[in-house]
């Protein structure tokens, strides 16, 4: 597929829009369907598309495997961290009311942060697993 000019240009044009859409799905999750999980999967799809067209090595220069593995763990830390912060502020674990003066704003911040954790973990996990499968296939064929 690497010689097909239409596929190459098409993938290059689509990628920023896919990444933008992933961010939209995450940040607009309070108002429309979607959230961190779907956003993480869509973000992975953007890089998977690039990897299918331009090859794994080119994508891993932009998004190295150590970074995706770091993301997988970082998201869990973000999610759990929100819970620990609310506990330190004197509320229950993941009691978002603690995060702002007005409980409603606290809920907004809490949900956005927690969904960010989901996004980062899902993106890291999906991309890492994709790298493992794709990398194994290439080096043994």
């Amino acid at each position, binding site marked *: 597929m690497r010689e097909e000019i239409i596929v190459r240009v098409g993938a290059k044009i689509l990628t920023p829009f896919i990444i933008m859409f992933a961010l939209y799905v995450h940040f607009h999750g*309070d108002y429309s*369907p979607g*959230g961190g999980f779907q956003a993480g999967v869509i973000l992975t799809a953007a890089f998977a598309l690039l990897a299918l067209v331009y090859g794994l090595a080119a994508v891993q220069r932009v998004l190295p495997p150590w970074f995706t593995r770091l993301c997988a763990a970082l*998201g869990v830390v973000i999610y759990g961290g929100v819970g620990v912060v609310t506990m330190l502020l004197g509320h229950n674990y*993941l009691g978002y009311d603690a995060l702002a003066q007005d409980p409603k704003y606290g809920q907004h911040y809490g949900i956005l942060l*927690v969904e960010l*954790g*989901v996004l980062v973990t899902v993106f890291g*996990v999906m991309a890492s697993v994709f790298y493992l499968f794709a990398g194994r296939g290439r080096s*043994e064929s």
Partner: protein
Amino acid sequence: MSIVVDIVLLTLLAVAGIALLRIRNLFAVVMLAGIYSLLSAGLFTVMDAVDVAFTEAAVGAGISTVLFLGALALAGHHENRPGHTPLLPLIVVSVTGLALVYGTIDMPGFGGADNPVHHHVADHYLEESPNEIDIPNVVTAVLASYRGYDTWGEVTVVFAAAVGVMLLLMGGRRSRAAAGDHGQAGADGQADGAGHR
């Protein structure tokens, strides 16, 4: 109108399912599985479960198709005929299916407004989430706030699953890099992976 869409989607689902069973070329099977997921996503949309439809389209039709293609690059494109007759699996599947259908007889009518599932905590979520959480998408409010612990569990499960996959698949890569030679390293990697397990 929606009943026509339902019938069309379910018919196509059945066609895709039967084709999935009969085709031996695994490339076609992977593509059909993607189409199957997309049809299911359409069905969820008709049932107004847009969040679920979204996830099904992104995960089922998107990422898992790519992962299956990656697996095909390792395993080859043709499925061998099974060595046994399909009689026993057919009986098991039929009995299980009939038991499940029998089980649904006791269930309340599909989509009924006064089903217990719609009145346990759902009333509170629908009526109070504008005051307590104040975001329009109740699904997000339930997932991230009311059921925040559940979602926390899901995130850790996803992470744990990824760690498992990495432990299984990454053993070979490290020893390959160390050995440098491809054929030799592949065998070493397998042995290494077995040792870790």
